[in-house]
């Protein structure tokens, strides 16, 4: 890939990139070729999502910055194709903003935009530019668009995984999680959605699913990733933080049943307040303390080993809770002495 030529290009001579993943994210439900307005809307909407756009291009902020500076500080990157078409491969939002300034008759000359023009870039060069600019650079795409792009590079374009990882800064975990989360979402969640219901915002739930703790808990409890997709679609799981609660909920029969009928919140209520028998409830604190001491003294060693090997077992959690409560009580009791 050569250095390219820096020039000023008429804004109408440059096409927005219809293959840009951020644009395609919002055009997935549209049939046929997207119109210019749809692409423009996609760019606008894609950047306005503050919930998951860490570092993403925010059109409104960018628009104000361009207005204040009287232009862009970094040129857009354009690929001059063999048929002489000029396609913007990096800087679609900036090009769109320049066009909107012209149509809104904003003061200044917005008819030409600074551009770095490359001739006949190979697909791999275009990918390299996008990866550097939007996956690890200062203008990162939203998480779903990044994952979709990585998945396509790896699965459809057969780019070696080591190369993708190197482009993305060498963190295998991030790349693996993004590609696998996208693949799981495509395979399991898309299969249960009718077109209009497919919600890319659910992607974060599939990212959380990649935790070995979460996936193991689902499979161990006899469920599948299709079940997980149904939970996401039906609202049993409402946000990504709730996905992390599944390893606590699924092993507990009562909490699991409540989760399947209602949601994570209701299931957590069951876990936080385990049912106690009437006898236990009626027992005094001294009786319970004595019973606890006796139970600890007579616990079989095999059970200790089992609990040691199962740090997520409910019993371990209740023991730790009891320890905390006892320490607090003892501290209070000793405070007066």
């Amino acid at each position, binding site marked *: 890939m050569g250095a390219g030529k820096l020039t000023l290009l008429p804004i109408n001579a440059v096409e927005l990139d219809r293959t840009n993943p951020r644009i395609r994210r919002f055009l997935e439900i549209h049939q046929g070729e997207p119109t210019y307005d749809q692409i423009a809307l996609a760019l606008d909407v894609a950047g306005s999502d503050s919930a998951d756009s860490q570092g993403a291009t925010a059109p409104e902020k960018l628009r104000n910055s361009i207005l204040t500076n009287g232009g862009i500080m970094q040129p857009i990157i354009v690929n001059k194709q063999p048929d002489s078409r000029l396609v913007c491969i990096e800087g679609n939002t900036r090009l769109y903003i320049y066009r909107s300034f012209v149509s809104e008759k904003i003061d200044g000359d917005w008819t030409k935009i600074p551009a770095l023009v490359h001739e006949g870039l190979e697909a791999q060069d275009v990918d390299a530019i996008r990866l550097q600019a939007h996956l690890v650079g200062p203008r990162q795409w939203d998480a779903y668009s990044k994952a979709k792009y990585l*998945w396509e590079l*790896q*699965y459809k374009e*057969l780019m*070696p*995984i*080591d190369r993708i*990882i190197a482009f993305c800064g*060498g*963190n*295998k*975990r991030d*790349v*693996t999680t993004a*590609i*696998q989360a996208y*693949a*799981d979402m495509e*395979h399991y969640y898309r299969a249960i959605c009718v077109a209009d219901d497919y919600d890319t915002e659910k992607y974060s739930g599939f990212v959380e699913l990649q*935790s*070995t*703790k979460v*996936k*193991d808990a689902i*499979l*161990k409890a006899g469920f599948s990733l299709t079940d997980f997709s149904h939970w996401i679609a039906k609202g049993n799981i409402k946000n990504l933080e709730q996905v992390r609660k599944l390893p606590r909920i699924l092993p507990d029969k009562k909490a699991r049943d409540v989760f399947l009928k209602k949601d994570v919140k209701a299931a957590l209520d069951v876990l936080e307040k385990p049912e106690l028998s009437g006898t236990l409830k009626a027992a005094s604190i001294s009786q319970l303390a004595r019973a606890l001491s006796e139970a600890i003294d007579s616990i079989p060693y095999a059970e200790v*080993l089992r609990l*040691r*090997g199962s*740090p*997520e077992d409910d019993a371990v959690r209740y023991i730790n809770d009891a320890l905390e409560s006892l320490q607090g009580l003892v501290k209070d009791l000793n405070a007066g002495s």
Partner: protein
Amino acid sequence: MSGESAQHVNLVERLVATVEQRHQTTRGIVVFADHHSFGVNQPPTIGGYKPDVFAQDLPETFRVIGEAKTPNDFRSDRSLHQIEAFLNHLALYANSTFYLAVPWFLKGRANFVIRDLSRPEHKSVKISVLPFA
């Protein structure tokens, strides 16, 4: 593996090489290892334990866990719980493989441990002891 012996480090390196060679695909393989050369690319924690090597392709069609054990490691109950946790995990996934890398003179002991820990639900896991000279 932090603070492990040179023997253990050597076993992990040979384990990584074996996994890369046996499980390589045209699209590549992602390997995580508890080895200084892997930096941040450490294996995930599984059942409370971190394996020495974890590998998969993308999107995932197989999953590999490798564990290296020296004579000292085999004396601890922790090692046995660890191997059991890895087998339990792999049993949940299709096309999974577990490698136990040991010095050659521990091959018999390693085979015994594997036989002792294996349960019917682990039958889908391909288990292999790798004795290294």
